[in-house]
């Protein structure tokens, strides 16, 4: 497929197409101000979550927002975390946060030893009480009570931050589950603790266990399970599976699962994973036309906009949105590790998709559409071509990218001949080796004879 073979008429047509596709379809849209990446509103962000995850997320933000440049943000996060911890009974987290504040928030936010002691003393008492109760249940052998006992223990440990013990206690209730509701309850508790611990293999196994008891699954629970599974896949870098799970999440989720994930997160995680891994038709059918998921996307208009931009090939504005989102996404406890990979994949997909319909592409136009220089674009395309992700070749003289259609027949011939000669060589050296070994045998056999 050589560019020169093209009749000149079609070449101009192609150029028109590039124009229509890339740079300016409607100027209004292009000039629309793009929401600037304003600083994360921690107060609003924290209000999306409840329970332990709220605290850990706040601490995460404080750890990652860059203390030198963004001290106000860090202190704000720590202050809220401190307040939140005080409401609960987790002395472990408290001891973790106080040194981080390091007295910068005034005397009200210092080490409160009395509080710690009080919490710990109460915990001891409660633990003794729970133990006594559990022992009594166990001597009486009442299954339901034993289950409740273990469950209480799990709740107790969880509240005090002993996640490992909490997980063990929850799992122990399994032998005493009598109804499928109980099983679901056990699974949900185990999943919650595993997510907090970052043990995502456990999450996957308990999600599948819960899904095996469909009779007790209501809409909210199954939505929760989808989210948990999505998180597990995300953590395992299986972005496509993660995207599927998040997209399947029902709108019933609401804020019912805010001890783990907010509906906004579902939209962001799902949207980004889908962009990075889905092809165009999947993107249309599973994301844009997905009524359920649209509800989530409404919550995060930026993600909705960027997905639409991507689909309608306004790559520059899509990439702009992504760039603005990035600082905030890097502060997300689950997504931060994957932001770079996902962004790279999205950018590559955009480049690939841009070139796909064309026989030839003008690099100047394309660089314009991606807001980059021709030389930089050439380098990016080069890596994509080397990795065989784009079947094309660059005419660096005229700065045009030409699609290349591999000749299956020739490739097959080449492969056959190559395989043949490899086989030939290997069989020969094998025969030789076999003969050598045989020779060795003969020699040994001979020497034995003597």
């Amino acid at each position, binding site marked *: 497929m050589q560019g020169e073979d093209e009749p000149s008429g079609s070449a101009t047509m192609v150029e028109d197409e590039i124009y229509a596709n890339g740079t300016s379809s409607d100027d209004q849209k292009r000039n629309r101000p793009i929401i600037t990446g304003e600083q994360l509103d921690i107060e609003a962000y924290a209000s999306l979550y409840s329970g332990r995850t709220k605290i850990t997320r706040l601490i995460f933000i404080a750890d990652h927002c860059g203390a030198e440049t963004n001290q106000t943000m860090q202190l704000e996060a720590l202050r809220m975390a401190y307040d939140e911890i005080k409401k609960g009974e987790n002395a472990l987290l408290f001891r973790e946060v106080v040194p981080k504040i390091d007295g910068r928030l005034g005397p009200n936010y210092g080490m409160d030893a009395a509080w710690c002691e009080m919490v710990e003393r109460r915990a001891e008492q409660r633990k003794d009480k729970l133990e006594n109760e559990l022992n009594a249940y166990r001597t009486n052998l009442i299954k339901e009570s034993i289950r409740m006992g273990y469950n209480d223990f799990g709740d107790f440990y969880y509240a005090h931050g002993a996640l490992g013990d909490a997980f063990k206690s929850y799992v122990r209730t399994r032998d005493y589950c009598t109804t499928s509701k109980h099983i679901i309850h056990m699974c949900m508790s185990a999943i919650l603790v595993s997510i907090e611990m970052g043990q995502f293999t456990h999450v996957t196994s308990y999600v599948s266990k819960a899904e095996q008891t469909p009779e007790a699954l209501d809409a909210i629970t199954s939505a929760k399970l989808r989210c948990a599974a999505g998180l597990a896949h995300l953590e395992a870098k299986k972005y496509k599976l993660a995207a599927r799970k998040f997209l399947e999440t029902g709108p019933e989720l609401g804020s019912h699962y805010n001890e783990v994930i907010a509906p906004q997160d579902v939209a962001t995680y799902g949207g980004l994973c889908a962009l990075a891994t889905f092809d165009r038709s999947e993107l249309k059918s599973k994301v844009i036309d997905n009524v359920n998921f649209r509800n989530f996307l409404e919550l995060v208009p930026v993600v909705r906009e960027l997905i639409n931009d991507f689909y309608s090939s306004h790559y520059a504005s899509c990439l702009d949105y992504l760039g603005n989102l990035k600082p905030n996404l890097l502060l997300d406890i689950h997504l931060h590790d994957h932001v770079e990979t996902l962004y790279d994949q999205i950018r590559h997909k955009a480049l690939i998709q841009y070139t796909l319909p064309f026989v030839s592409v003008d690099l100047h136009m394309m660089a314009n559409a991606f807001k980059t220089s021709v030389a930089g674009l050439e380098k990016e395309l080069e890596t994509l071509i*080397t990795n065989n992700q784009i079947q094309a070749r*660059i005419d660096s003289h005229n700065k045009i990218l030409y699609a290349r259609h591999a000749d299956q027949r020739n490739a097959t011939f080449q492969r056959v001949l190559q395989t043949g000669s490899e086989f030939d*060589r290997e069989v020969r050296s094998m025969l030789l080796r076999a003969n050598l070994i045989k020779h060795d045998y003969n020699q040994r056999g001979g020497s034995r004879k003597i």
Partner: protein
Amino acid sequence: MGTVEVLVAQIQGLSSTAGDISRLHTLLKQSEELLHAETSRLPSALAQLDASQHSLGYLYILEACTSVPISQEQTSSIVLTISRFISSCNPEQIRLAPEKFVSVCKRFKDQVILEVPIRGVAPLLTAIRKLQTSSEHLTTLHPEFLLLCLLAKCYKAGRSILDNDILEVDQPRDLFLYCYYGGMICIGLKLFHKALELLHNVVTAPMQSMNAIAVEAYKKYILVSLIYNGQFSTSLPKYTSSVAQRNLKNFCQPYIELANSYGTGNVEELDTVFQTNREKFESDNNLGLVKQAISSMYKRNIQRLTQTYLTLSLQDIASTVKLNSPKEAEMHVLQMIQDGEIFATINQKDGMVRFLEDSEQYKSCKMIEHIDSSIQRIMTLAKKLTAMDENISSDPLYLAKAGRERQRFDYDDFDSVPQKFNI
């Protein structure tokens, strides 16, 4: 016992029928001591014999004759006698005493090497052809011949031997040397794929203990595989002997380093490794090959460009593959086009190179013939493989060994059948 004269008479009388010759062979074996004692009278005895008719007797006397140190002035006459004998002797007779023939030929080679190696190439080739029972048979003379070819720089002559597939081997050492020298000859001829195959055979051959040939071969194997494949993987195939797998790498550290830095595709890094290990390469006599490997990196990088670019200026080529000037890039590209490694045209006016696709369409008669011959070849190989499999599975030695092994592992299965083969 008789004297040399009697022996000569016996040789003359007993050289016609097969029965006579085997009797003569016994006689000759008995009189070996006599011959070695009376070396001074042998040249005259040789004169009375005809090399083509009395090959066996002639061979024995010649062997005895050359067993003593040869003086400087005798050398040329001896060399002449031996080369005449080699060209006229009767193959069937000399095969009765191969070790004698081999030792005569080896002495011949030793003499020739001292003077003009090229004089020994043709006689030794004849000697190999006469000594081997089939073209698959590797004789002790093979490595000697290849060594002469290398010294005489007659690579083409060596090639004629290397084209035969070797399957039967008398001595493992012969094979190691044969493949090593063969590899060097192929490197000389720039037949890197063949060289790679031969060196691969050395490296992966079954061995009980490390040997210097394998180490040297491995060094060259690394370099050739860089030149030919553009990459080298340190993991050897699993059929390689465990000794080789464990030890080879330790002996060739500089080469492994070179291969690793080659893998990065960075010319400067490769050059640093080359400079630090330069002395080592030089003392191994591999300097030339190392340089070839380094320059192959440029080719490799240019080849990669053909996959991504349709046109590229010489300037860009030079800067991408880190060549000093567009002129140098042009020379590289030109050379590669000439060798059929890339398909491209150079436009000197604009300084642009236009890369084309492979023009082979796999439609020509020649290509079909080539494919057909490959198929035939592979079918023969497959047949050979089956035959060999059958052969081995009915080999008493193999069965004895397999039987013993089974017995050791599994006492319940104990039966007396393999015991019979237990020699």
